[in-house]
């Protein structure tokens, strides 16, 4: 399927097919079990009873090979940045990244530390930034919904 990826021309058939495929993709966003700091606690809550992400078809997968979405939950030190980038590279395309909380957005509280990465977008492309320190599960769910909107508008087969 990826040989057709962004290859077909724009017309009614491919547009509708793209809509269907995007709907399927956005309805089953499997996110990776990966957290580095206190945002991780909120991330676990987001999968829990109060703010059940399974409603949107999002389930946690423990291996990067089967996940579509990486949520950077917490402070990334320079040492961790290398590993995070490797995990990102291990995910198969198409893949998405949500930067969750101030630390992942810009370094946050630890911005002036000698060892903290000033924002995860320095090492990988980010789709959604969720502000907060840490963001509540509701905010993260809003981030997921925004990501779903973005996936729905994407051109998957069309150039």
């Amino acid at each position: 399927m990826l040989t057709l990826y962004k290859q077909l021309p724009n017309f009614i058939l491919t547009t509708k097919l793209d809509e269907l495929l995007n709907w399927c993709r956005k309805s089953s966003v499997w996110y990776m079990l990966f957290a580095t700091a206190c945002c991780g606690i909120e991330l676990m809550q987001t999968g829990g009873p109060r703010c059940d992400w399974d409603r949107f078809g999002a389930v946690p997968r423990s291996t990067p090979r089967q996940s579509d979405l990486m949520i950077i939950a917490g402070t990334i030190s320079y040492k961790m940045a290398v590993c995070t980038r490797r995990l990102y590279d291990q995910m198969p395309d198409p893949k998405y990244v949500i930067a969750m909380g101030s630390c992942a957005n810009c370094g946050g509280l630890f911005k002036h530390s000698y060892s903290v990465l000033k924002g995860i977008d320095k090492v990988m492309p980010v789709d959604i930034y969720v502000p907060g320190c840490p963001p509540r599960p509701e905010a993260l769910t809003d981030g997921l919904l925004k990501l779903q909107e973005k996936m729905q508008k994407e051109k998957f087969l069309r150039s």
Partner: protein
Amino acid sequence: MIQQLSLLFPMLPMWLVQAIWCGVVAVLLLTFFSLFAGPVSWLERRIAGRIMSRIGPNRVGPQGIIQWLADGVKNFLKEDLIPRDADKILFRFAPYPVFLGVTLTLVTLPFSSLLIGADLNVGLLYIVGAWGLVVIGLIAAGWSSNNKWTLLGGMRSAAQMISYEIPLVLSLLVVVLMSGSLSLQTIISSQGASPVEWFIFSNPFAFIAFVIFMISAVAEGNRTPFDLPEAESELVAGYNTEYSGMRFLFFFFAEWGNLYVIGALAASLFLGGWQIPAGWRNFASAQGPILPHVFEVLMFQLKTWIWVLLIIQLRWTLPRLRVDQLMKVSWKYLTPFAFVSIVGTGLWMVVFPEGWLFMKYLLLFSMLAVIGYFVWRAIWQLRFTKSKADFKLIV
């Protein structure tokens, strides 16, 4: 059936008719398999949601019922990733034995007295043999990924499935002993519609064999509490850590397809399969030739689904066993008890050639008492459930 078909198409040679017929049956069975495995994955997530006081998938289609379709299409669209250092041929090959091992068993599983892929006279042996293919796939997946976790998962699955195959086969032997046949249709025909005519209640040793069968079948299917090969807290995702996209979906399919195989085996071997009461059969036969089979199919599906739902509940209720505990359960408890149940059933058949009706009713009513206690506890628990107001906020 094939004779009738060849009469319909007299110009075609016999072998061609046979080949086309085999193809049609294979496609139908595969369709049934995928149409079972998909929705059951949605059902399992909904039940898991209820047990964890979550909701589960409810956005995709009415109540999320086509969630499995979205998952499937998405996995088709994902990149098919093969690690650089992997054994590439084996890595590509590994998902297919797992998938085949489960689908091949469907050939001899009966749906009704007429609907069966092929009623082999060695049906039970065939099922056990075909199921054994799964191990090859899991080890191949674990080895070829060139990853420590997958290798550990593959080795665990090999150890687990080989040691649990022994009590499984021994407990199946009890059924073979009682029916005197390996063919599944003959086994079902030698039981009756009423519960006291089922093999499970025919003597206490057969009841033990049924319990052993259920435990070791769940272990064969790699379901929790025996899901050590893919233990997420210890090994990353077990043998399928390096698999992405469609190749991973094959493992996924096999896992949920296994549920049907376990449920259908339990229903057909111990619980009377598609047998319906004589009154129903007479009523249905009066309506036409098709209705009896509809009743039989419904009866068989009912019995199967009870076990499918039970296994799903077990998964979300029980914690995972440790490796040494797993081996201990198989070798120290299940295997000796399976031998005892074989010898006991043999002696029982010698002492009571016609069966002992009192014992059958005793077993039936003790089983009903257990089910009744379970239902009563469930209702009793419900009294403590708080108002649904919190629940409605997030729906």
